[in-house]
Structure formats: C-alpha cells, structure tokens
C-alpha cells in the first residue's frame, strides 16, 4: 500500500505534504468538483485582495519582513499554527492513521511537543535580540559576515528542501482535486505564491495563514463532530468499528513501528520535538509582534490551535478507517482509496458532509499549500535580501528601498526555482525531504541559535563550524540512510541505519560548536569573548556593526 512509504521511512513531518510517489503510482486525473472550484476561486480572490491591501501598507523593510511589528498574539498564534498545519497534517497524517492506525498518531503526538520547546527555550530571547531573521539574533554578538553567510545558507537549504516537497505535493493534489495538469498546477501555485510574497510581504503571508488556519480548524472541527455523531459521540464505538474493518484488527490500537527500530524511534522524536525551533520561516514570525510578551503569548495560542488540530486528527484518522475503508464508493477495484491514500481525509469529508464539505476541504487543502509555500519563500528571500545583501554585502548601511527591491526580486527568483524544482522532481519520492528538513533544522540552525542565545563562550568560528558540520552530517547521513539510499536510489541495504539521523547529527553539531569554541585561539575568538563582558543590556535590536 502506497502510504507505507511514510511509515517505512519514518519521514512524515507535521508540515509535510503528500509524497510524489504516493500519487504517481496511482491512476491519473481526478474529476472536476464544481463546489471545490467555487470555494477555491473564492479563496484565491480573497487572498489576492488581502495581498492588494497588504501591498498598500508595505512600505518599509519593517513592513515587508515583520509586518511592521503590529501583529497581535492571537493573530501570530494562528499564523504560526497555520505554518505548521499544512496539507501534510491534514491529509498525510490522516492517511498514515488510515493505513497503520496508532502508528500514525505517534507522529502527531511527537509534533505536538514542538511549540512548548520553542517558547521555553527560544521565543523571548529571539524576539529581544533579533529584528527580521534569526540570523540577527545569532550575529548579535558574533561576527556578522561569517555567521550571516552560514545562517542564510542553512535557511536556503531548509527552505529549498521544504519547498520542493510542498511543490511536488501541491501539483499532485491539484491534479487530483481539480483535474488540472501537473505543469499548470505548478505554475498556478508558483504565480499565486509570488504575488502574495512579492507584493504583500509578511503582512500578506501572515493574513493568508490566519485565514487558512481558521478555515482548516473550522473544517476539521466540523468533520470531527460529524464523524463522532455517526458513533453517538462515543470514541470507543468509533474505535471498535475501525478495528472490525481494518485488516490488522486490534493491532492498530497500539504503536508498532517504534519497537522495530528503537534508535530511529528516538531520533524521530528528537527531530520532531526540536526541529520546530530551527525552522527559519517559523522563527521569522516572532519578529512580527511588538514585544517579547506578545511573542510568548503567540506561542501559547499557536500550541493551543495546533494541538487542537492534532486532537482532531485522532478522531478523523480513525474515522477514515471506519467510514471510508468499508465504503466501496471511495475505493477502486483493488480496494485502494480512489486517487491514492492521501485522499482518504477528503473522502471522509464526502462521507460525513457530502459534496459541499468535500469541496470546502479540498479548497482548504489547496489553501494550506499556498500559505505554507508563501511563508517559506518569504523566509528564503529574507535570507537573501536581509542577511546576505543588506548585512553582508552592504555591511548594514541602511538602504530600505533597495533592500525591499532585492527581496521582491529574490522572491521571484525563488518562485521560479521552486516551480522548476517541482517539475524536475515530479515523479520522485520526496517524502524524505521533510524528515531531512527537520533533521537539518535540528542539527544546524537550532544548535547555533540555542548556544548563541545562552552560552557566553560561543565564538564565531565555533558557531559556523559546528553549524556547518551539523548541516552536512544531517544531509549526508540522510542520503546514506534507508530513506534515500534504499528507497530512492534502489540499493539493498543502507549505509547508515538510523532514519532520521538526528540522534547523531544534532549532538555532533552541539559538540562541535562547543569543542571549536573552547579551542578557539583566533583573533575573532578573542574579540567574541571580550565582547560578552561589554555589551549593555539590550531591549531592542541594534543595527548590525561590521567587524
């Protein structure tokens, strides 16, 4: 069954999206769903209107990167939750539960722990010390150029991997939902995303996320309510029906894959728990709020909404087993769900809410992709225009108009690159890219950021070398692992058995940062250590100083 490709690779991350292969192997086009198209058009028009409104208000770099710092806690919470709840959470996790029962919920539970860690360790200091990107906070006391070059590279790496996975999934999803050819689907996503970001910047992407998150939550709640009402609001009854239908029976009520590979199980837990704190597009959202207080509040709201949605997946996941797996209307002749395993959540919407709910949730699923892709592109373009252009190339000399112009251009370039990569990777199995982004985030941006915020003896050389070692090891070990070496490249045994490799690459990054900083005898290292004792307490970000 196609969805086993998730479990076998231990890949799906919460913001993940349907694997290209999971679709590619199923039959081609879906039918035209008029309701879905109507909802979809309404949504696109609304978001374009938001973008137009946002573009009128986007005049400075403050506006473009950080929405002028005027986003409230609740709004930011919804936007962050929106970034996290993508098509992968709704479609992918539900599909995982459909095929493997409780095993799918293990991913959900692990993802639910990401936000607390973010607020306990990162949120307020990040907000205090940074301006637009997390690289601001890291280079607050270390040398600008090397740190920013490293941070921007890590950001672009993470963003690109994530983008490819989203674009491939988007194309397949649109092809199935709206009957549009993959190529056109890629162009539609690419063009819309470029509009949102290039014209509306952070204001537009934030509001698009807010709208989409609200719709997804409402839709999810309605679905969960309707599913439970089929079973007299008795969760046990729902489970009993699911057990009686699923080929593996009562085994679906407990975790099974954890015991098969304990080290990978812990590695996955690490990745999903700490990876969130290293994702550049999520970290960027902390600068859209006016203060540290609001930054913390926004994480509370985000965790509330996200975990509510995860709880909904508990219900709709098993709901699909109970109501879709047994209904021949949703299955093809071989007993597999029509359109592929990732469509089960939408079939469930159809089963409990008819064509209208199906259309609504299809449009929402598409909206989630657009919103996440926009946030990613903005983070990528900020890395280019703020970190590289403004701070490295122009050494922090204020030049807002040019900086905004560079961001818009880099948005267009990133958009084109994203579409091209989406087309190139069309038939590839890209699910591993999501676990890879979390591993890379855990092993490069997170360690460097955490140490920069808390450890006085971190030096520039230590940060850059440690972060780079983490990044490279995460990438190489993933390629050498079962996800790529076996499943994509077709070899028989993996070179490196742990998937994801976080349990190795993350400690490696921390250890390297520590070791190199402690042994650092360079001039820059001496400067770094001297500076710690001299900086006065900073309430807000100070413009970068070139060393």
């Amino acid at each position, binding site marked *: 069954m196609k969805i086993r490709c998730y479990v076998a690779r231990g890949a799906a991350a919460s913001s993940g999206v349907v694997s290209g292969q999971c679709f590619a192997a199923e039959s081609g086009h879906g039918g035209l769903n008029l309701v879905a198209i109507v909802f979809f058009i309404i949504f696109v028009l609304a978001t374009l209107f938001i973008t137009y409104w946002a573009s009128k208000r986007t005049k400075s770099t403050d506006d473009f990167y950080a929405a002028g710092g005027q986003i409230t806690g609740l709004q930011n919470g919804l936007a962050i939750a929106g970034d996290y709840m993508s098509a992968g959470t709704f479609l992918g996790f539900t599909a995982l539960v459909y095929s493997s029962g409780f095993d799918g919920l293990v991913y959900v539970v692990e993802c639910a722990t990401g936000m607390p860690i973010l607020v306990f360790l990162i949120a307020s200091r990040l907000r205090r010390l940074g301006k637009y990107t997390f690289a601001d906070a890291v280079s607050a006391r270390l040398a600008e150029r090397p740190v920013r070059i490293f941070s921007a590279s890590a950001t672009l790496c993470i963003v690109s991997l994530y983008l490819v996975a989203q674009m491939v999934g988007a194309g397949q999803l649109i092809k199935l939902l709206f009957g549009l050819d993959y190529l056109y689907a890629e162009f539609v996503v690419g063009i819309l995303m470029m509009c949102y970001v290039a014209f509306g910047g952070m204001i537009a992407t934030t509001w698009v996320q807010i709208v989409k998150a609200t719709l997804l939550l409402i839709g999810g709640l309605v679905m969960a309510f309707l599913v439970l009402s089929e079973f007299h609001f008795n969760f046990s009854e729902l489970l009993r029906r699911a057990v009686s239908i699923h080929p593996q029976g009562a085994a679906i*009520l407990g975790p099974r894959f*954890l015991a098969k590979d304990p080290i990978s199980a812990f590695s996955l837990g690490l990745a999903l728990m700490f990876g969130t704190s290293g994702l550049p597009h999520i970290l960027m959202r902390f600068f859209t709020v006016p203060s540290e207080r609001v930054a913390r509040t926004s994480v509370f709201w985000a965790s*509330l909404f996200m975990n509510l949605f995860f*709880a909904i997946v508990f219900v709709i996941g098993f709901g699909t087993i109970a109501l879709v797996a047994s209904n021949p209307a949703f299955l093809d002749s071989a007993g597999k769900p029509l359109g592929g395993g990732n469509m089960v959540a939408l079939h469930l919407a159809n089963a409990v809410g008819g064509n209208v709910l199906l259309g609504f949730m299809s449009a929402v699923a598409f909206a989630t992709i657009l919103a996440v892709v926009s946030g990613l592109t903005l983070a990528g373009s900020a890395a280019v225009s703020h970190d590289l252009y403004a701070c490295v190339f122009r050494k922090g000399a204020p030049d807002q108009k040019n900086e905004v112009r560079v961001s818009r251009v880099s948005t267009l370039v990133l958009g084109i690159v994203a579409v091209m990569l989406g087309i190139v990777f069309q038939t590839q199995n890209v699910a591993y890219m999501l676990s890879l982004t979390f591993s890379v985030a855990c092993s490069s941006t997170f360690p460097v950021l955490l140490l920069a*915020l808390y450890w006085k003896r971190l030096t520039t050389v230590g940060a850059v070398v440690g972060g780079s070692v983490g990044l490279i090891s995460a990438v190489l070990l993933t390629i050498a692992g079962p996800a790529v070496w076996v499943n994509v490249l077709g070899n028989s045994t993996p070179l490196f058995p742990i998937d994801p490799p976080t349990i190795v690459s993350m400690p490696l990054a921390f250890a390297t940062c520590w070791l190199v900083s402690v042994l650092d005898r360079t001039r820059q290292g001496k400067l770094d250590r001297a500076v710690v004792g001299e900086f006065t307490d900073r309430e807000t970000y100070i413009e970068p100083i070139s060393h």
Partner: protein
Amino acid sequence: MKRIYGLEEDSIKREKVSFALVLTAAEVAMLFGFILIGVISPATMAAPVAEGATVTWGFAYGIVIVIVSVLLTGLYVWVENRSSV
C-alpha cells in the same frame, strides 16, 4: 549600570532559566517516556485502559501529551508575562 549582553541580574536570570529548563525537561521526559514504553513494551501501550474498554493506554498517554503540552506552554507564558515587561 553596565549589564552583560542581554542577560539580567544573575539571580533572576538563573531562576528564569531554570524554570524554562524544568519545563523543557518535563516535556522531554513526557515524550521520551511515551517512546520508551512504545519501544520496550508495545503491548502495554496496546492494552485497554479498563476491563473491556477499547481505548488503550497509548491513546490515553498520547492525548495527555497533547493536552499537557498546551497547559505547560500556558503556564510558562503566564508566569513569564506576569513578571516581565
């Protein structure tokens, strides 16, 4: 009065940092406990919570993690926001 880069008076800072660390440790312990039991004894996770019930300990533990994560986040935010700007 000069203060060190971004850090408050040492004692306040130590309190704040240790509160955050305690909560982090709690969260890690909760999740890794979940994984550990799933690794060592999946049968325990698959066992029903009560005689004849369908809901298993796995579900119970899982939903507890989902709920407690939000509560801990709320606790942290409430405490920190109360005592700072």
